[in-house]
């Protein structure tokens, strides 16, 4: 094995280590035809009970992050298990999502709709008050991640407008 390759590998490991620390990961494994590299950070507890409302991130975040594409996904987004979550509009509060102004009414928006900045996308009810979540800018509704009547946490991804 040529030394240059070795150096490349050490460099790769170093790069992975940086990513691991930056992105707060627990383990990284990279495998291609030439090489398989796994780096891993110390242990974490196995939870005995899984939360019901929304899953917490896996205790040992065995997220494989390719070196060339560092992810900026926050744990909340990872938890949502959704690729689109990164640019989704997130819930500004704890509450219950309503996609229409009243039961049976037409939803505020549907996938494919064009929206303007300030348009109401959905409501979040908390403590008997309904709080509109509006589009931050004009765009097209790409994905609706929350369902009608769904309880949401703070920071939970709701809707993708691009």
């Amino acid at each position: 094995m040529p030394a240059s390759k070795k150096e490349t590998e050490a460099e790769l490991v170093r790069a992975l280590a940086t990513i691991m620390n930056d992105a707060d990961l627990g383990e990284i494994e990279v495998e291609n035809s030439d090489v398989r590299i796994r780096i891993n950070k110390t242990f974490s507890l196995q939870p005995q009970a899984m939360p019901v409302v929304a899953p917490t991130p896996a205790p040992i975040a065995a997220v494989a992050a390719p070196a060339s594409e560092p992810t900026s996904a926050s744990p909340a987004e990872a938890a949502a298990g959704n690729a689109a979550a990164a640019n989704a509009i997130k819930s500004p509060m704890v509450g219950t999502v309503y996609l229409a102004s009243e039961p049976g009414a037409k939803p505020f928006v549907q996938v494919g709709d064009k929206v303007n900045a300030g348009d109401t996308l959905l409501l979040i009810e908390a403590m008997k008050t309904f709080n509109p979540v509006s589009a931050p800018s004009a765009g097209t509704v790409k994905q609706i991640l929350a369902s009608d009547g769904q309880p949401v946490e703070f920071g939970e991804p709701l809707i993708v407008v691009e």
Partner: protein
Amino acid sequence: MIKKVLIANRGEIALRVHRACKEMGIATVAIHSEADRDAMAVRLADESVCIGPAPSAQSYLKKSQIIAAAEITGADAIHPGYGFLSENAKFAEMVEAHGLIFIGPTAEHIRTMGDKIAAKQAMIANGVPVVPGSDGGITSIDQAKKVARDIGYPVLIKAAAGGGGRGMKVAEDEDALETAIKTAKTESKAAFGDDAVYLEKYLGKPRHIEVQIIADTHGNVCHLWERDCSLQRRHQKVLEEAPSPALTDEQRNEIGDIVAKAVQKMGYRGAGTMEFLCENGQFYFIEMNTRLQVEHPVTEMITGIDLVREQIRVADGKKLSFSQDEVLLVGHAIECRINAEHAETFVPSPGTITDFHAPGGPDVRLDSAVYSGYRIPPHYDSLIAKLIVHGRSRKECVMRLRRALDEMVVGGVDTTLDLHRKLVEAEDVVDGNYDIHWLERYLGLK
């Protein structure tokens, strides 16, 4: 009947409440900020809800978010822990207005005890001893002499507008009184533009002694003896013990009775603590905490009573599960508060705990929400573990505490473990011979 409790707190106390709930067959909801996703209580609770970003003001102090979290999870009661919203009368009101049970006293009692003057008046009305003094300002030397003679020397002259020790003078005897008053007036005038002064009994070497009580809604009140929390640094308790090495059984029974009676007269509900300064066997009321205290485990270890369980029972309208006669006092217990701080400089040390090993064996209890690999977030207080040890005697307790401290390992961050290891070897601590100034003197002299 409480079936699901939302725990409106974080850290070790959130875990403490979770444990009590699980042992009662009650489901738990852990709320948390974005910084606390990996918290132990979040991992162990039946459900969890993220209620906001890391800063407390936007999460653990955000009343509406906490109540919304109770709504979406269907919790029927909220335990506030200590700190955060635990003594916020408005929050207690909101919780009850939303048809939920607040595991704590009524908003009214929280409000009264939160107001120092109202609290002191309530105590006087209910027969609890307070620091004696001139009720208003000093109007003449003769009046001052009379008051001082009544309460006994030494006395303290304090600026009515005062603070930070300015305008404060001690008079050891009557000969020194006039000069002390004049000096205090002059200093007060210079510092605050007001020469009004008043007089209070001076406590030179008081101990901080507090009495734990719990009351149900059926008129039953029990005191659970006292805790001695005199070892403090910057008004933060560092090491607490029960019973106090400074009290006789007679004194202990007497102050317990006084407090229990006062609390009964008040019609108080839930757990609470009356804090006193104590000098020469005399007690002087400071304040009443209308919540669980950090140091409640020392009381649990000498009585065998689970205070959080009783809090939940009482909030649920049940009777206390014991009577005053059944409140035992067996042996001795000491708690060490272990903070993620440098043991000498007290600089906080957030970061990742690389190694964590709890001490084990007989009569050792660890209340801690950290684990190996846990990251201590920088946003909150630095308490990472409470080590509580029991022994049949105070001596046995101290010896056991030493060996438990020696077994404990926390790697990756600075901790005050080494301070505690030194404290339990210090002669005055071993002898129980300290007052509220002892620790700061000890740290200063070191």
